[in-house]
């Protein structure tokens, strides 16, 4: 998941491309995190809200849920690399100048 680490930065200035890539990686991680929070909330947390603490079942469920999400993330990534699904092929297309 790391896009960094190619070439070293100039001593003083800012390599715009490098910063952009790091920002995109940050966005990606945040996006994934938010989706895990939301999915695992839907799967694990009872919406009766009889109390404010996580009970034992909910806590165990969250742990498994996060682990499983990472597994699925890995599987999907591998599958997509195998298919060679390029970014362009899945987009609306027609954006060439």
């Amino acid at each position, binding site marked *: *998941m*790391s896009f*960094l*680490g190619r070439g*070293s*930065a*100039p*001593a*003083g*200035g*800012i*390599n715009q491309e*490098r*910063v952009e890539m*790091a*920002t995109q*990686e*940050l*966005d990606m*991680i*945040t996006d994934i*995190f*938010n989706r*895990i*929070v939301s999915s*695992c*909330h839907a799967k*694990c*947390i009872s*919406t009766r*809200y*009889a*109390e*404010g*603490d*996580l009970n034992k079942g*909910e*806590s165990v469920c*969250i*742990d498994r849920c*996060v*682990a499983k999400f*990472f597994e699925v993330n890995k599987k999907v990534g591998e599958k997509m690399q195998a298919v060679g699904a390029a970014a362009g092929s899945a987009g609306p297309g027609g954006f060439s100048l």
Partner: protein
Amino acid sequence: MDFSAMSPAEQAHMNRIIERKQMQDFMRMYSSLVERCFNSCCNDFTSKALSSKEVHFYPPNLRDRSVLTKPIAPPPQEQCVLNCTDKFLKHSERVGARFAEHNAEMMGANMNK
């Protein structure tokens, strides 16, 4: 994430970006939390008063004198919102902890390749 390959100027710049993003994320989290608890706890918009449920909350059995000494509990809808908020924050924190562990593990696995 590993920013060690960056120059000090770049790191400083990234820090500003991260700060701004955290503010944005916090706000988005906040409003999504309000929406979530609203949707889970508030369902009755047909009754006359906004908090009609509150009436039913005060103990129906007046022979039970213990209620007089207990602190008065908030109405159920309000309690639901408080619990929902509380639970979401704990949920979010737990997910964050697990996330960090798995992420670190994944980074380690990538390093060893």
